[in-house]
């Protein structure tokens, strides 16, 4: 029986059946991501949702949220989100990337500052931008590599976080190249020792324990 035109009671209000689910997923995403500007983030979320792209949504709730006052506001989780959204292409458009950056409620100035480390035109290799982002998370080169490993790895969280040694050495060389203080010979020797270690036991994968723990131990 179709509903009459006039409404008499609250029971006649029709709620689309898919609305609660969408609303719930959105709420969950918002709670997880904890965006600074919910409206901006929501625009990005729903545009991504409507286009069928990966959603700007953190996989894990990050308790120590970046405040954007003392640091860049960038966190490993946000970088992971960006990686999720952009890793399917080798090169990403800067405009596109900036839009995604904005959708994550990150300040554009930081984006520009990041790019000034490695100036480029229009598009940038995603792995490079990721390496830059990792380096901006703070800490030494080693911690940057740790973050990179944790972002790039296919292993479950908390696992050995292994990545191919090729990628590792590429990023390491790239980052070491940006840093003028590091002599090239040291880099190569370090990489050689790591390579020996890895090739002795594994199938070309380098894990977090291979370089980070060792460092800590020493």
């Amino acid at each position, binding site marked *: 029986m179709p509903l009459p035109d*006039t*409404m*008499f*009671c*609250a029971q006649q*209000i029709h*709620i689309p059946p898919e*609305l*609660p689910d969408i*609303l*719930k997923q959105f*709420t*969950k995403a918002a*709670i*997880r991501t904890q965006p600074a500007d919910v409206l901006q983030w929501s625009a990005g979320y729903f545009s991504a949702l409507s286009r069928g792209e990966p959603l700007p949504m953190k*996989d*894990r*709730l990050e308790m120590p949220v970046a405040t954007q006052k003392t640091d860049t506001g960038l966190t490993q989780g946000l970088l992971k989100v960006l990686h999720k959204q952009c890793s399917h292409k080798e090169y990403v458009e800067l405009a596109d990337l900036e839009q995604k950056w904005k959708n994550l409620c990150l300040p554009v100035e930081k984006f520009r500052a990041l790019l000034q480390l490695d100036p480029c035109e229009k598009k940038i290799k995603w792995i490079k931008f990721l390496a830059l982002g990792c380096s901006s998370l703070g800490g030494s080169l080693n911690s940057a590599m740790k973050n990179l490993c944790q972002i790039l790895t296919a*292993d*479950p*969280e*908390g*696992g*050995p976080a292994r990545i191919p040694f090729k990628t590792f050495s590429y990023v390491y060389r790239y980052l070491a190249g940006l840093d003028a203080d590091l002599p090239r010979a040291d880099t190569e020797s370090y990489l050689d020792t790591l390579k020996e270690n890895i090739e002795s036991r594994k199938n070309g994968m380098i894990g*977090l*324990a291979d370089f980070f*723990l060792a460092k800590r131990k020493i």
Partner: protein
Amino acid sequence: MTNLPKVLGLSWCHACVTAGAARGAAGRQQWLEEKQQKTPRPAGSTWAREKEADISLTKPASTPELGTTATRASLAGQPLGRRRSYGAGAAGRSQEPEVPRARDRNSTEVPRTDGDPRCSATVVGVAGRLYAPWREPSVAPTACPGNLPSRPPHFVSPLLASRNPCPWHYLHLSGSHDTLAPTCLKARLHRKEGGPRPDVTLSLTDHSSPAMGTYTYTSRPRPLPCQRRRYRDSLLQPENEPMHFGNIMYDRRVIRGNTYALQTLPLAGQPDPVELQRQQQAKRRALARKRAREQLRPRTPEPVEGRKHVDVQTELYLEEIADRIIEVDMECQTDAFLDRPPTPLFIPAKTGKDMATQILEGELFDFDLEVKPMLEVLVGKTIEQSLLEVMEEEELAHLRANQYAYEELRNIELAEVQRLEEQERRHREEKERRKQQQWEIVHKHMETAQKIAARAFAQRFLADLLPSVFGSLRDGGYFYDPVERGLWRFLLDSLF
């Protein structure tokens, strides 16, 4: 004139009659003309005429003699019938042929011809006044063949009733002479019973003419109402008719005189056959006589082909026949038995009051207001559930991450343990090997020392032994020359 209505009526009639006589030929001539003008006079008309005559009579000179004559005539009783013809004078004489005709009418055998209306009217007037009270109310021959009343009507005036000890006689007489319905009287009587009749009108039309009757009377023709009432007044109240007491002297059931001469009845149950036969014969004879009498009576001729006889009232005045009570059959049919219908659901009667209010569209429902609780539920529930789910998933993910981290640590530590174990094993093996080596060295040392000691001892021990043994053995003869020994042995054997 008396004040009694009945007596008054009677006196009127006689006045009429006498007036008719007194008027003479001129009056009669005018009367006839008048009659012919309005020929079929209804019942009331005669009465009017009488009235007229009465007035015309009493107006000029109401002589006491006339009045007394009338009174006397009216109170005459039985001989009045005969006397009337004389007293009536010309009118009475002129209506002489009328009498048998009127009598014949009762038998309905002679169809009534158009008689002289005047005469009959007059007769009716006279007769009615005088005799009607004792006549049978219904004159209809079909309904009441005997024409004899079973009782005198209760409206008999006391005066007349006292004069006639036996109403039967009187009635018979009156019936034989005048059988015309006394319409005037009837009208009067009915008026007395049921009040004045509106349709009977009397009017004095011409006041100026002194001698002639100037009354005109008009009345609609109507059937005579029956005197017998159709219905009893009530079922509970019996008709208050006076008991009919007959004279016991004439009652045949009462035996008078002595009873010796009476025949004693035969024993009951055994009638005398002779008596029986006689009775039967008497009965038969009576029957035969009756039949013969019936055959002798003149009868109505058979109807012509294509017609048939119908009973018709042939009286001058149409009268309502009420002998036979009208019966009407009424039927009532109840329904066939039906199954009892199921007991309907009990619905208690509504209590309270119904009130109504007009509500226009949009007055009752405010979407923003109505949607609020729903939205609260929707949002609140969604957030709550999302929070719960996020927390749960976070917890799970955290657990898993910790699990993986621990697994990683464990892997690392396991590797370390393995390494240590291997190292330990190697160390142990080395130790064993070295112990063995040392042990072998010590063992060799000891063996060598023992050997040296034994050699020295043996050397020292055997140093004295050899010469003594040789000496003893030599002494024992163990060292000899086999050839010498052989020779000796041979010599000795040869000697012995």
